[in-house]
């Protein structure tokens, strides 16, 4: 299997799994228990918290473990909105992941207004629009660090400056960047940040919300006194330990890995566009995740591309995994101004830790044939 769907999920790094294993059986206790077994579990959780904090340059008490990126996004948007009752506007972007978009839309039920900042054809948000949209009624700005479908990296520092000029909390969904790009919440001006373990070779079912000291938010899940009373529920100790290990690995290997993957990604792009006419590169040509290659293949439809690839043992995706099966083309591509017809032909290759050059060469060999085959049967191809 050639797996080029790392933006959907990643395998768990064997070092991560090894770190987790003792916490299923030998050290299985509840970190809230006051016997020594409990203390041992507590120490493991707090050690993982340090590693997380280290990776994004946060304080340890600014880290709140969650069950994933979606939960972190929900806590941020709902939590900040519900923790006050003066401001009633939520600003987000048109290209957010559904975990933010749908969450914002849900808040209209509680009287919040949602403004979606548009993006340019490369997927960069319109800072002027944002500047005009913010006001004293705005409670939170939630704009993603990098987009999962096209990889475009947003101008976080500029966004945070606009937010802070108006006393607005700035949250960023960094699910696709944590572990791939260096992050420093202080210097980037990030008040809240969401991350997800399974996107950088950590375990599924793990994630975190980083919230700067002083940011007020209601919990999403209420209950016991876990995570400074902000996220109730018995801690997923093995998962948290694994997430910590994934952060530790990313910390030391991220820079090297980014370089290696970027080369492979560019080789893939150059290899296929040499052989296939009428390809469109999605996202920003430079300000883009090094691992992401989103393209639109004109005259054909994305799912049929995927199925053919799959028959060749190649795993890719058309847009975000969550919305496959929907009939609408990606809201991200549409927001970037790509016509429906073209957007239906989108496909995303996303590379990762275990991607090898031979795999890329195989895709370069196979993919053009698939496109050719589908174009032959397409009524849209010009002959």
């Amino acid at each position, binding site marked *: 299997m050639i797996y080029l769907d790392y933006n959907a999920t990643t395998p768990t790094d064997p070092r991560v799994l090894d770190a987790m294993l003792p916490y299923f059986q030998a050290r299985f206790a509840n970190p809230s228990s006051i016997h020594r077994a409990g203390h041992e579990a507590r120490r493991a959780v707090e050690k993982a918290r340090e590693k997380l904090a280290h990776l994004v340059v946060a304080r340890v008490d600014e880290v709140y473990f969650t069950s994933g990126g979606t939960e972190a996004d929900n806590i941020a948007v709902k939590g900040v909105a519900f923790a006050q009752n003066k401001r009633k506007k939520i600003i987000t972007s048109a290209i957010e992941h559904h975990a933010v978009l749908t969450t914002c839309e849900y808040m209209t039920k509680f009287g919040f207004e949602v403004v979606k900042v548009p993006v340019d054809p490369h997927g960069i948000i319109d800072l002027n629009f944002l500047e005009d949209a913010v006001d004293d009624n705005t409670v939170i700005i939630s704009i993603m660090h990098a987009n999962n479908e096209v990889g475009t990296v947003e101008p976080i520092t500029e966004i945070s400056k606009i937010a802070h000029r108006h006393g607005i909390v700035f949250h960023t969904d960094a699910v696709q960047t944590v572990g791939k790009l260096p992050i420093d919440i202080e210097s980037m001006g990030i008040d809240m940040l969401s991350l997800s373990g399974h996107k950088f070779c950590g375990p599924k079912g793990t994630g975190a919300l980083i919230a700067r000291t002083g940011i007020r938010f209601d919990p999403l899940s209420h209950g016991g006194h876990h995570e400074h009373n902000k996220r109730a529920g018995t801690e997923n100790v093995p998962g948290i330990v694994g997430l910590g290990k994934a952060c530790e690995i990313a910390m030391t290997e991220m820079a090297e890995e980014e370089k290696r993957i970027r080369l492979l990604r560019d080789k893939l792009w150059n290899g296929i566009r040499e052989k296939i006419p009428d390809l469109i590169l999605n996202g920003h040509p430079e300000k883009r995740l090094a691992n992401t290659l989103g393209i639109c293949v004109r*005259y054909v*439809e994305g799912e049929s591309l995927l199925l053919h690839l799959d028959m060749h043992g190649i795993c890719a995706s058309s847009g975000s995994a969550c919305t496959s099966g929907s009939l609408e*083309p990606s809201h991200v591509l549409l927001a970037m101004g790509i016509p*429906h017809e073209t957007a239906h032909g989108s496909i995303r290759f996303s590379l990762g830790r275990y991607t090898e050059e031979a795999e890329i060469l195989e895709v370069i060999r196979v993919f053009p044939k698939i496109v050719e085959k589908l174009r032959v049967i397409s*009524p849209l191809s010009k002959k």
Partner: protein
Amino acid sequence: MQYSQKVMEHFLNPRNVGEIEDADGVGTCGNPICGDLMTFYINIEPKTDDLHMARIVDIRFKTFGCGAAIAVASMASEMAGGKTLFEVTELTRQDVADALDGLPPVKMHCSNLGVQAIQEAIKDYLQKIGRPDLAKTIQGCPKKSEHNNQ
């Protein structure tokens, strides 16, 4: 959502792909904006307006669409080929879906598209041979707006 083996088989090896120059009838359904489009080309013998006599003797299609759309077009072309026009108008989307060992619910609209596009081609034929009245009795594609709501 996962396709049956039958769907995959037709998707990977679609039958009757192509166009017919100067076809007796041509019909198109779907819309690339919605992600699928099918054009069917048919030749008829004998070229009568008796729906019980006239048969599809050649059928070709082109499809832009998902795996289901391609498989449906292929299967529909196989089912319609050799049949009288009357028999073809009796084909339902369920017949096509059943012949494919089922389709995922979210893809059922594709099976409609196949039957409808062939019916459009039959309408086109009837119109060409001067029986627009008969053509009107055959369903063909829904109006655009309806299709968009599917």
